[in-house]
């Protein structure tokens, strides 16, 4: 058998010393499980931690998150959703009223009242409203100024297809992911909005296979081109800025799948990324048994509970990028009937749950990066979302898509008011309708097939599944999208076997 601990090859460096130290700390967690039985998820403990933060507030050390107030709410509300807890109507209303104070008069949401609009809090606010809001007066959903959100998004657009996260702020793929999820949920996607964005995302893939924070554009320097937009963007060089990283990789990959959902599978306009290298990099991010199977965010860095989602959650997206699932290679002699029993995951789902349950739970409630760190709202949610993605496998389902398509009603664009769409585009309104129908069907047909769950420690550890693209529960995704696309989504019909 292989040795448990990693080797420094008798050539130690700061990285291998830190790695050895972390493996030592984690081995103590393994040696002393808190019970003799299988590891358990301390749901009540975590719910109390979350409820305390939501209702009583966060201690002053969270001042560093003062510009991320929508995130504090979203992390807390979504953690509760994953733990199958919903708020009472009074607290829901309180949440809605709070979230609406973050909306900027010129579109989008800021990190708190009076703060400038920014793509990241816009995602967090809209997702928090997906959880707590409802249609109608005071419900939050109809108070979102969607045409202004769209104008805000367009005002951030750069000549290389990327977006600033806010005015005078940086470009990075987290912002693009936040923009695309928001635009998808609110039904304001247009071809104009996402022109060039897929190419930008592809340019962020590094030689390792994962994605970097952004890339540097170069433009042809013709003397007659005065403005950036008039210059031609060069294909090369277009260097990634920064190394392959778990958070950026999830955001880039999910963004590419969202763009593809909008443009349709048959689209030939999407740039090529190296999916084989991406898969290789993702699997390399899983720590060994000495690291209890947690995920790290970069090569030669330490495992951290939050990458349970950023890296662990990215695996389910690979099939949408053209990676053939394992069962397609398992030979023609095996019939479709056996597929339900095949664990398609290409990472070790059980080991990831071991890491989260044994290393990331804090005795006082909440979840952590790694011991001996303290819990916080961010790690609590991304550890729980990672746990959900290890327990549940959601994949695009042709039969679920067919169900939703059958229920589709043509209700007009439903999205932006006519005045928001530039006159030059009014002739492609029909195309918009088709594209928006595409994205509705594609994003809501992610479905968990029976027999694909893998729950370490027994059914009492089970948490709610979370949507692989949005990181909302399926119920919350359907609720807000049904509203903004003016659709009624049929319940999932019980099927014995997949007819696809």
């Amino acid at each position, binding site marked *: 058998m*292989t040795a448990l601990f990693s*080797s*420094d*090859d*008798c*050539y130690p*460096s*700061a*990285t*291998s010393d830190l790695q050895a130290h972390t493996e030592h700390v984690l081995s103590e967690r393994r040696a002393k499980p808190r019970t003799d039985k299988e590891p358990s998820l301390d749901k009540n403990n975590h719910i109390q931690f979350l409820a305390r933060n*939501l209702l009583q*507030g*966060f*201690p*002053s050390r*969270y*001042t*560093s*998150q*003062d*510009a991320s107030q929508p995130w*504090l*709410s979203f992390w807390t509300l979504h953690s509760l959703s994953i733990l199958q807890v919903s708020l009472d109507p009074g*607290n829901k209303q*309180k949440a809605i009223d*709070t979230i609406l*104070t973050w909306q900027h008069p010129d579109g989008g949401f800021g*990190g708190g*009242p*009076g703060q400038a609009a920014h793509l990241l809090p816009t995602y967090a606010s809209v997702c928090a409203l997906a959880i707590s809001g409802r249609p109608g007066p005071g419900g939050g959903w109809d108070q979102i100024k969607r045409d202004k959100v769209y104008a805000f998004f367009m005002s951030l657009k750069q000549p290389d297809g990327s977006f600033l996260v806010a*005015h*005078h*702020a*940086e470009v*990075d793929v987290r912002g693009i992911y936040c923009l695309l999820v928001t635009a998808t949920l609110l039904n304001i996607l247009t071809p104009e909005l996402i022109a060039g964005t897929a190419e930008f995302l592809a340019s962020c893939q*590094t*030689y*390792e296979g994962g994605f970097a*924070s952004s890339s*540097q554009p170069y433009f042809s320097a013709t003397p007659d081109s005065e403005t950036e937009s008039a210059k031609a963007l060069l294909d090369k*060089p277009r*260097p990634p*800025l*920064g*190394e392959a990283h778990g958070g950026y990789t999830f955001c880039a990959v999910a963004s590419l799948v969202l763009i593809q959902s909008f443009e349709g599978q048959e689209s030939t306009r999407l740039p090529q990324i190296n999916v*084989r290298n991406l898969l290789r990099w993702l699997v390399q991010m*899983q720590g*060994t048994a000495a690291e209890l199977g947690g995920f790290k965010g*970069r*090569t*030669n*860095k330490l495992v951290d509970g939050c990458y349970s989602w950023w890296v662990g959650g990215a695996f389910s997206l690979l099939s949408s990028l053209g990676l*053939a699932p*394992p069962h397609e*290679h398992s030979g023609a002699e095996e019939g479709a009937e056996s597929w339900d029993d095949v664990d398609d*995951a*290409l*990472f*070790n789902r059980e*080991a990831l749950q071991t890491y989260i349950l044994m290393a990331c739970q804090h005795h006082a409630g909440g979840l952590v990066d790694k011991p001996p760190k303290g819990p916080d709202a961010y790690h609590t949610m991304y550890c729980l979302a990672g746990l959900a993605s290890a327990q549940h496998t959601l994949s695009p389902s042709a039969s679920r898509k067919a169900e939703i398509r059958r229920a589709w009603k043509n209700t007009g664009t439903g999205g932006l008011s006519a005045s928001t769409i530039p006159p030059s585009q009014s002739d492609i309104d029909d195309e918009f309708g088709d594209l928006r129908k595409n994205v509705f069907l594609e994003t809501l047909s992610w479905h968990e097939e029976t027999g694909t769950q893998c729950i370490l420690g027994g059914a009492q550890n089970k948490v709610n599944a979370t949507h692989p693209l949005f990181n909302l529960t399926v119920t919350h995704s359907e609720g807000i999208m049904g509203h903004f696309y003016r659709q009624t989504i049929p319940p999932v019909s019980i099927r014995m076997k997949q007819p696809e």
Partner: protein
Amino acid sequence: MTTTTTTDLYSDDPQWVDVTPIPQYDGINPVAPILYTDEYKDATDYFRGVLKSGEKSERVLELTERVIRMNPAHYTAWQYRYQTILALGTPLDEEITLMNDIAMDHLKTYQVWHHRRLILTQTKQAAQELAFLVKVLGLDNKNYHTWAYRQWILSHFSDDDLWRHELEFVDSMLRDDIRNNSAWHHRFFVLFEAGVRAGDEDREALARQEILYSKERISLAPNNASAWNYLRGVLDRSGTEYSSLAGFVEPYAGLPGPTASDADTIDTENPAPQPGARLPSVAALEFMADVYEKQGGERLADARKLWTSLAREHDTIRQKYWEYRSTAAGKL
């Protein structure tokens, strides 16, 4: 530069009496509130007041600095500070001096680095930046923002003087820590991503040089994933067949190499693993399996043997992946 004392409240300061502070939440009882200190609440109440009045003045620079020092992620304070600097025509070198100080305390904050980038875009005075970044990387040699910023400086200004010593710098970072993946990535950025620099026009020679560089580093620490990933990057980018390195990799995979009989000969092109290395190295097994898979035909069985040994013995956490590779082989 104004000295700020963070114990004084603006609400007690007669010089601020003309500004109406604005409380954050008016008339609502928010969910998930932060229990701020008095100093932070006071400063941000006045900051909201200034945002509303649109005042851009020296004292606004002082106010935004105070907010930023208490919360460097307050992007609205940064944004307003930048607009104020532009409006007042504040000397930008002073701003950079202040940023040097703030950056050292708050390396992990996006805004610290982006504000610097905005200022540099204006001043175009990049000469001192690289030396400053060496100092910052001394505090945290894998800081993502610092590396990304360094790469921006190099690619945005694209000045030969800036580039001249970059490879020496990467070398020194890798001598400090051979496993620093940020430094390996930077090496790839410098040589393969950011255009062709003077002296590097012969791309084949460059690939040969970098393959040898990787081999030497792998021989020192054969289980260092960063070096293997870099080697793969160079091979992929230069279109070099993996099989051309089989002779080098075999000893690391515990396979008998073609030069095994010449134990006394030192092959400088194919350095052997150093004593004390743990072999076989997982990365070497994976590499050889890739070589065999590409060769196809009867060699597929050899590839499968290696994937099986990875799945069952040497890299069991990735069992599913190695099995996938085995079933997918020859069908992709």
